[in-house]
């Protein structure tokens, strides 16, 4: 397993500003992901954070709006740029652990609750 922390845990931001969310893992991992979730609903994958290269974005998400960094195997950031109220959501970081025998098993951070006014 892995222990994942996210910062900040919550924030209230003004429209037009940007927020960078940090994700730190206590061990080296192969895959890191960023998800968005409306409270009580399912998860939508934003992108896969690739170490040393550009992130892989899902349909409907673009790098200009959600730039992602992954400088090493234990850390990643997601920036929500030029925010609007529609960006209000929970943002979750997750990882797949090196050596996990079964593909697909993920471990999640506690999430960042964002409210855009």
């Amino acid at each position, binding site marked *: *397993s892995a222990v*994942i922390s996210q910062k900040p845990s919550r924030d209230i931001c003004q429209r037009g500003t940007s927020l960078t969310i940090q994700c730190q893992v206590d061990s080296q991992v192969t895959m890191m992901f960023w998800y968005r979730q409306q*409270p*009580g*609903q*399912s*998860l939508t*994958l934003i992108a896969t954070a690739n170490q040393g290269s550009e992130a892989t974005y899902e349909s409907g998400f673009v790098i200009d709006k959600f730039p992602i960094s992954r400088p090493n195997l234990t850390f990643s950031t997601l920036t929500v740029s030029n925010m609007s109220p529609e960006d209000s959501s929970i943002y*979750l970081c*997750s990882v797949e652990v090196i050596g996990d025998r*079964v*593909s*697909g*098993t*993920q*471990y*999640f*951070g*506690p*999430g960042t*609750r964002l409210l855009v006014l």
Partner: protein
Amino acid sequence: TQLLEQSPQFLSIQEGENLTVYCNSSSVFSSLQWYRQEPGEGPVLLVTVVTGGEVKKLKRLTFQFGDARKDSSLHITAAQPGDTGLYLCAGDRYQKVTFGTGTKLQVIP
């Protein structure tokens, strides 16, 4: 688009009752996970199933993977208030994970 439909969407039951949550798809998955998420927290992995027909038990929770690896069920015996939360299934297909639509469970003391 791979779609994982969960049913029911919402469930409110009394403490001590039994319940079953279903996760269905038309796609075949190489593995399937169940997660539970409590308010203010990230999803927590409960179980991973990989073999068609596989049954796994975790205390009062029983998980089954369909024979064709297209569906799964989660059965809770004698539900307790601590079981309250959002239950999510997730299927892995060609190393791409899709999350189910979610089942919100409330267990009333």
